[in-house]
């Protein structure tokens, strides 16, 4: 007998006289109704978690914003799915040395304030850089995490990262510090919605 068979055998033996319990059904996210729209909810939580949020009405405005923002950086690492209009006008560098990373989020979740980062965009540019700029189309904001996971279930990459704020820790004497391992600065740029 293998370890697998022995473990499953012990599980079955333990459950032999136990009444099975049914799954309670879908999680309904019970929470008090708030007047916030999904986009407002996302912005509220991202900012509360220490993230920065910028809102640009369209792609052109986002391109101009990026040109100004990049003035403070000498190079950047860019995600695979970033369109030409959103590539920073500065030299590219590998994520382990670049001071800036630019990615596109696959979507976002209002109830948790999360940006959905797809592994196909490249994980290193999402994680190794001190400052992470993430572009997001406002129509890609899901109200709940459950909706987001159901919607992505048929097209899952090797990994999804939910980024809901900058890297932080309170492990040193319970005092909050930012930028421990991942980006210490997270800038979400919401595009659209105002046209």
């Amino acid at each position, binding site marked *: 007998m293998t370890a697998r068979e022995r473990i499953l055998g012990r599980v079955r033996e333990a459950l032999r006289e136990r009444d099975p319990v049914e799954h309670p059904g879908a999680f309904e996210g019970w929470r008090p109704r708030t007047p916030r729209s999904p986009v407002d909810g996302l912005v509220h939580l991202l900012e509360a978690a220490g993230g920065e949020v910028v809102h640009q009405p369209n792609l052109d405005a986002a391109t101009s914003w990026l040109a100004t923002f990049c003035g403070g950086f000498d190079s950047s690492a860019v995600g695979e799915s970033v369109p030409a209009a959103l590539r920073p006008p500065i030299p590219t560098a590998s994520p382990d040395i670049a001071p800036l990373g630019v990615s596109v989020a696959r979507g976002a979740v209002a109830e948790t304030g999360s940006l959905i980062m797809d592994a196909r965009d490249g994980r290193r540019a999402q994680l190794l850089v001190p400052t992470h700029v993430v572009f997001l189309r406002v129509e890609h904001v899901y109200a709940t995490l459950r909706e987001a996971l159901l919607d992505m279930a048929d097209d899952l990459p090797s990994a*999804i990262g939910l980024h809901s704020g900058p890297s932080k820790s309170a492990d040193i004497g319970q005092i909050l510090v930012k930028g421990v*391992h991942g980006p210490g600065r997270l800038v979400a740029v919401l595009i659209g919605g105002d046209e």
Partner: protein
Amino acid sequence: MSFSGPTNYRRESAKAIRDKPEVRDSVTAATRTFDAHRVHAWGQIDADRWRDWARDVKTHVLTHLDQYLEQAERQLTSNGTRVHWAESADDALTILGEIVREHGVESAVKAKSMLSEELGVNRHLEGLGVHVRETDLGEYIIQLLDEPPSHIVGPAIHRSVDDCRKLFHERLGTPLDADPDELATAARDALRAEFLAADLGISGGNFLAADSGTIALIENEGNIRLSTSLPRVHVAFVGIEKLVPRLEDVSAFLQLTSRAATGQPIGNFVSLIQGPRRSDEVDGPEEVHVVLVDNGRTRLLADEAAWEALRCVRCGACLNICPVYRQTGGHPYGWTYSGPIGAIIAPGMLGLEEALPLPHASSLCGACVDVCPVRIPIPELLVHWREKAVEQGLTPKVETVGLKAYTKMAQRPGLFSAAGAVLRHVPLGLGGRALPVLGGWMQERSAPKSSAKSFLQMWKEGIE
């Protein structure tokens, strides 16, 4: 340094309170903060309904565990993840050793994982000549100090900022008056080099979705994302109780666990891992291994009452609220899982004889059951293990003899009042220590003064 087992809990807890009073201050301050955050976060949702739902899903999984394990294995395999089964810590370490040999692993980075602490992963890897580095800041601190974790969520909560200043000064050369930001930057720089060099990343798993084969991990630092993304091999140790039926169920557990642990709507980083790097991806590990670990869990599952403790999501809320845990932190409990949850899973996983002091490390105040996000009836299970200990004759001889003597005496009114009269005239401070049961209580406390009259006398004379 590793744990020596729960057997010496009484001695170790007394020693901690006497010799390290500053630990009580650090732990109490940290756990009060954690708990205040939880209270605030639960106030924003209909927490009772979330908790009922989470309890029912976990109970459903546990009562169908064999089916969900088989489903998860099929799905993980079809995602390209290699699945291993480990009955014991030794099995799990052997599997890890084979992966290390196969890939010629020289260095490993570790994401915080209580299961890897339980298994003794670090010591084993060091024995194989692998350089292993804890990357969670709290775990890094205690690895440098050669200490085990003191709390499920905050492993270094027993250490003050000053402790960290001294440690980092000696090990990383930071100034003795460095602020926490400078300390964290020094740790980031030291660890970044290790991340980039490591061949192997090791993690646990908060949840494993059976339908999609997704390993879900919650954190705030980003070190788990890095440990599971940069090295070419990723090994995740997952307890068999971590299964949830569907990926959509994970959404609620991620949020409830974060709210219970740190009061956040969700951890700042969540990893949802489906398997190794695919052909259309530019980075990620080439191999992902999931080691499904029993190590006492099926033994706990077989207990007619305590199996409910396997619903635990390791949020630490019951530690944060526990007045007994707050006095000492986790070290005196003598094994990986401390506090109320540790006290009810230890007898099931390690055996009652080995874990016996822990179900007594409680005043049965019941605060823990009020905060448990999956409604584990912790006080009932503490009593359950105490009763089992009596049934199996595991209580101290002197307690058994003492209680028998008391029973005989209490049945004879003359003898009872005579004994009472004698005891009232012996100063408790002197004689008390010699008495069974009372003696143990008196070891750590000063004696109260005896009343001159018995309660019965006062009752007859009319109590004012």
